[in-house]
């Protein structure tokens, strides 16, 4: 089994490695209507499909999956999928209060910090559905830039050079 032992936390927000202890709640979140609406795959996922996915990612060294916790309560999920030249990031929030607040930025900042500062990656990409203007604004605030636009989605990228100036400014908001 892959040893995803990364635990990263700041200002009460944590990225906790996905495990058999927290994988069940992830299925409930993934199937929420407002979560599925912004996914490339919007189908309801059943328990056996979810278990098969969990067993696959546990043995895939190129996928790091996390549960996002705020003050020790699960509020969403995040992942990094390592490709040859970059990593793809994925993130959703199941907690509506966090999702609609400025605190939605924190798990994404932590994920990028893990990617650039710990894993020393040089580029992270994110796919955003064209209609998800909030995610486009959200990513742009963190320094993402558009790589390509397709009929239904946009590919965005971020590098340490793009992220670091934004990171300092955003973290200042949470330093209270």
């Amino acid at each position, binding site marked *: 089994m892959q040893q995803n032992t990364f635990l990263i936390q700041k*200002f*009460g927000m944590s990225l906790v490695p996905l495990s058999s202890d927290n994988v069940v709640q992830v299925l409930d979140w993934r199937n929420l209507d407002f979560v599925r609406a912004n996914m490339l795959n919007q189908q309801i996922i059943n328990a056996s499909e979810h278990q098969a996915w969990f067993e696959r990612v546990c043995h895939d060294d190129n996928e790091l999956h996390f549960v996002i916790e705020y003050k020790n309560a699960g509020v969403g999920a995040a992942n990094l999928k390592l490709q040859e030249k970059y990593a793809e990031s994925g993130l959703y929030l199941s907690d*509506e*209060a*966090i*999702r*609609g*607040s*400025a*605190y*939605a*930025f924190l798990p994404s900042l932590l994920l990028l910090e893990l990617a650039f500062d710990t894993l020393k990656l040089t580029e992270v990409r994110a796919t955003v559905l064209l209609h998800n*203007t*909030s995610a486009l*604004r*959200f990513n742009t*605030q963190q320094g993402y830039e558009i790589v390509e636009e397709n009929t239904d989605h946009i590919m965005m990228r971020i590098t340490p050079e793009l992220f670091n100036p934004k990171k300092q400014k955003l973290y200042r*908001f*949470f330093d*209270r």
Partner: protein
Amino acid sequence: MSNTTLIDVFSTSLNIESNLVVDTLAYSEHPNWDSTAHMILITDLESAFDVMLEPDDIIDMSSVAKARRILAKHGVAF
């Protein structure tokens, strides 16, 4: 005075007409109110009312009515 300021800040931060800033205006009720706008809103409210909000206040500030209640807790009179 404080109520006018509150309406002005919401209107500017969320980029909406001031007549839409009513107590029932909430995060899930308007497309302009997303997490990015929320961060701008909090920063502008703190500046306009000279307060520093706690993290739980920020997360809880999901409507105009709640904003007024939270600011009142920090000594702002409406």
